[in-house]
């Protein structure tokens, strides 16, 4: 599940321009004591979901196992859901354990999406774990995590 390579559809002009513009400026990485970083993720999870239990399962998180640049990392989240009126995914939340800010993005979905699949491109500051959490229509929370090694860091 974790680490499935989904490099795929990347050769877009916009992306190339994005890489060029990012290369122009230097980046400041705020290095904090290692123990402090997962605490920020824990705080963000608590702030978003309170004390609700987050189970592992039902969510598939695809991102490259190794990213040469952390600036444009393709990510796809797939949630195992029928996406019917009664049984669907309400939202998907993406977190980066060791970015300056752990929150990456949140999307709201519903039965009108047909499939609970979302792709985007994200910045990952350093080698770390990425976490996807899905909130289902029965208000249960499901998740998946994946490790990614980042060779050249970004400024997320």
């Amino acid at each position, binding site marked *: 599940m974790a680490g499935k390579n989904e490099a795929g559809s990347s050769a*877009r002009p*916009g*992306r190339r*321009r*994005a890489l060029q*513009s*990012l290369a*122009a*400026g*230097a*980046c*400041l990485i*705020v290095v904090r004591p290692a123990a402090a970083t997962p605490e920020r993720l824990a705080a963000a999870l608590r702030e978003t979901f309170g004390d609700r239990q987050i189970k592992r399962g039902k969510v598939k998180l695809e991102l490259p196992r190794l990213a040469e640049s952390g*600036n*444009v*990392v393709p990510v*796809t989240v797939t949630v195992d859901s029928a996406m019917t009126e009664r049984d669907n995914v309400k939202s998907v939340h993406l977190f*980066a354990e060791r*970015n*300056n*800010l752990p*929150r*990456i*993005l*949140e*999307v*709201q*979905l*519903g*039965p*009108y*999406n*047909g*499939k609970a*699949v*979302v*792709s*985007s*491109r*994200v*910045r*990952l500051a350093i080698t770390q774990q990425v976490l996807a959490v899905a909130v289902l229509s029965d208000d249960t929370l499901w998740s998946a995590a994946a490790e990614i090694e980042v060779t050249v860091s970004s*400024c*997320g």
Partner: protein
Amino acid sequence: MMSRMGKARVRVPERATRGEIVEIRTMVDHPHESGFRHDDMGRPIPRHIVESFTCSYNGREIFRARLHPAVSTNPYFMFYAVATESGELVFTWTDDQGGAATQIARITVTD
């Protein structure tokens, strides 16, 4: 009002059969500057990000994203929608400096 919010591109199938799940791809030209970078002189580059992206299908919101600085420059999204009827998909991006962009795509749905 289009402060540095550039061209928006969307890819939606022109035709679909009723009930078909169609793929939607979107991208907007935007620096989506995280606020964590410094220029060559060491000065901080201020944050300038797209905060929200929405897609409505014949007036009903079917996708909403809230973006944080860790989304890449030129924010890209791929998601799906059930083709229920012919009509319009309206895509809207808004950033944290009052910038906004809108793009419209039409879809013809047949039985």
